């Protein structure tokens, strides 16, 4: 059954938010879960995307994605009224939500999208939310208003200082952890190196840290094992054991290498796609 796009807007240079019809998923999903999207049935890739929000009454879910490869570029070119053939979910274990006390939520770039529903859920459970969101530069900061609305404290940082504080997210994170009353939990979601360094930071202070991993997947149901990561020396499947793990136990270095498995092929596919769109005069 095709899923119609009912809303679309661009959040930053390459980041898009779409709202699509998916009634079953909208009513079943919980914070932390994801879907797998395949634009068309015959030849499309299956790509995992976190559910950034849902409206059970309307029967829609919100997806936020960055156009980095061919499939996401193709998706970015869909407009309201167009459809996506396949969306399956919700997948993965939901976030463990309870009242911990103070939780520091750290988001980097596109990572703010999966972080938002988790932060929201934690807020609703009665936690004090300290949010730190960052990006390379001003244009890439997404969902600032949404975070403002649910956070008790919010710090925005950019690498180049073009907006907010000029810092990496680890700096304010370190400050929060050094306070007299240290946070009971940290949640860090973003690019793999960012999560790695957040975990190194919180480890010093013994602040338990949850990360959400977005590895290469096919089915998202445990069948292919392509998403496997090393956690505490054991092999875990991100799709069924995760996507959230104890960040202090994740082997990020190995994960980063695995994420590059298809870099060359992906670039090739993207170049071809762009060239094709240029030729037929579709590119904006």
């Amino acid at each position: 059954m095709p899923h119609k796009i009912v809303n679309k807007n661009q959040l930053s240079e390459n980041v898009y938010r779409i709202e699509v019809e998916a009634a079953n998923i909208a009513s079943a999903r919980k914070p932390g879960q994801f879907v797998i999207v395949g634009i068309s049935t015959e030849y499309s890739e299956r790509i995992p995307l976190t559910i950034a929000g849902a409206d059970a009454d309307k029967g829609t879910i919100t997806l936020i994605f960055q156009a980095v490869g061919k499939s996401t570029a193709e998706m970015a070119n869909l407009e309201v009224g167009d459809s996506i053939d396949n969306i399956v979910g919700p997948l993965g274990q939901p976030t463990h939500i309870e009242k911990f006390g103070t939780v520091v939520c750290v988001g980097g770039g596109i990572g703010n999208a999966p972080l938002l529903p988790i932060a929201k859920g934690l807020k609703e459970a009665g936690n004090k939310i300290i949010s730190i969101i960052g990006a390379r530069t001003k244009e890439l900061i997404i969902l600032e208003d949404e975070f403002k609305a649910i956070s008790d404290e919010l710090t925005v940082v950019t690498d180049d200082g073009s907006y907010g504080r000029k810092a990496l997210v680890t700096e304010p994170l370190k400050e929060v952890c050094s306070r007299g009353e240290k946070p009971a939990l940290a949640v860090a979601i973003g690019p793999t190196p960012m999560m790695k360094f957040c975990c190194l930071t919180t480890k010093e202070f013994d602040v338990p840290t949850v990360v959400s991993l977005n590895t290469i997947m096919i089915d998202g149901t445990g069948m292919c094992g392509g998403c496997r990561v090393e956690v505490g020396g054991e092999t875990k499947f991100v799709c069924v054991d995760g996507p959230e793990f104890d960040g202090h136990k994740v082997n990020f270095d190995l994960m980063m290498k695995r994420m590059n498995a298809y870099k060359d092929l992906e670039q090739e596919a993207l170049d071809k796609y762009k060239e094709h769109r240029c030729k037929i005069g579709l590119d904006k």
Partner: protein
Amino acid sequence: MTESKQKSYSELREKQKNGTLKNSERLKIPPQEMPAQEPDVRKNNVEEVALGYTEEEARLEAMRCIQCKNAPCVEGCPVRINIKDFVGAIADGDDQKAMEIIQQNQLLAAVCGRVCPQEIQCQAKCTVGLRYKDPTMAVSIGRLERFVADKFLDNDMTPKIAPETGKKVAVVGSGPGGIVVAGECRRAGHDVTIFEAFHKPGGVMVYGIPEFRLPKALVQKEIDKLIKMGVKLECNFLVGRTRTVKQLMNEDGFQAVYIGVGAGLPKFMNIEGEQLVGVYSANEYLTRANLMKAYDFGKGADTPIARSKKVAVFGGGNVAMDSARTALRLGAEEVYLIYRRSEAEMPARIEEIHHAKEEGVKFLILQNPKRILGDDKARVRAVECLRYELGEPDDSGRRRPVPIEGSEFEIEVDTAIVAIGNGANPLLQQTTPGLKFNKWGNIEVDDNCKTSIEGVYAGGDIVLGAATVILAMGQGRIAAQSINEYLKSG
């Protein structure tokens, strides 16, 4: 065909018609070889390897059957097809009748004619084979089944449907078992919905078994047949997550549920280097290649797969053979199949082993990987193996492989595919309270495929562990009968 051969064929047909063909004459007919694409040609394409019997080959093969009284072949068939009679019908030239006989017990004849391990089932018991003390001399029942099924593939032989009962049956998983249950329950007049997690139906027949062994168009035809019968199909629906079994029953009005989700959690070997880039589970490798059509990457398909030059496949089953032969078709120059026992212990079908060898897969037996070695980018560069020898028989009855100490050696490869089987997927266990599982995570059922929850039935790999298409179908038949019986009283 030479003139004399043609003459003898006509004579045999004539005698068959008159009922004067003697057993001694039947036994003299040589087994008919299956025409196949040449190895050098087929390893460069994804088209089907075995091409199917011509009419004449089929008649000759069918006439080899001596129509023995007790027909032990039927007992060897997990779905109890009336083999003796359908083979007899082919010998008589009445293929329509043969198809009708097959269809009494079998909805997926074109599939099973191709992928059933007949040599350990019906054909293992064939009187002709036993008479020669050579199983390869048995009547080729599978090839005959395929011959008939292919002939009627496009004919509308949709079975009759009983009057609507208004009762709803949910079938979880659209693999071979699910298809059988859906068909049988629909025939009984129930309102059947199949739920499939992937975006295409067919289960292992579309993601796992390669095109060159089982064309996907053929599987689709079987699915189309179900749809024509009125079975509903919901793809992209993961039972346990999208809706739970309890929700299907308590909120969505399904009175019975069949769980046929397969095994689907790949086993790894827990050796060093398994996380390296270029190490695949066979599930992932085959899914990329088959379902996602990675062989067309750059020519339409968006899913990439390693462009391998040298590939090592670990394992000795059908899935290992499929992986090795797929790697060749994707352009690998060298493919090694590494197996720790000897060829005699390989669980793969003889035909698959034979085809793999013909195509150039190199068999490294009595060897096993100890670790996988990577380069500075964490890409596979070699496998370190140990040599093995065979010791005393183990629990499986096969001789136990024993490593030879200090026998380590390296094989240079850029890709490694782990094909050592699947465990049970934990999703339903996590989300279906009250459903009983054994210690390996397989669902517990009684002889009627009934689980610990009223109205819930299960079969196939999620019950049996890793098995075959036909065993899943056999359980599907049992489960469907139980469900139809259960819904009669309910």
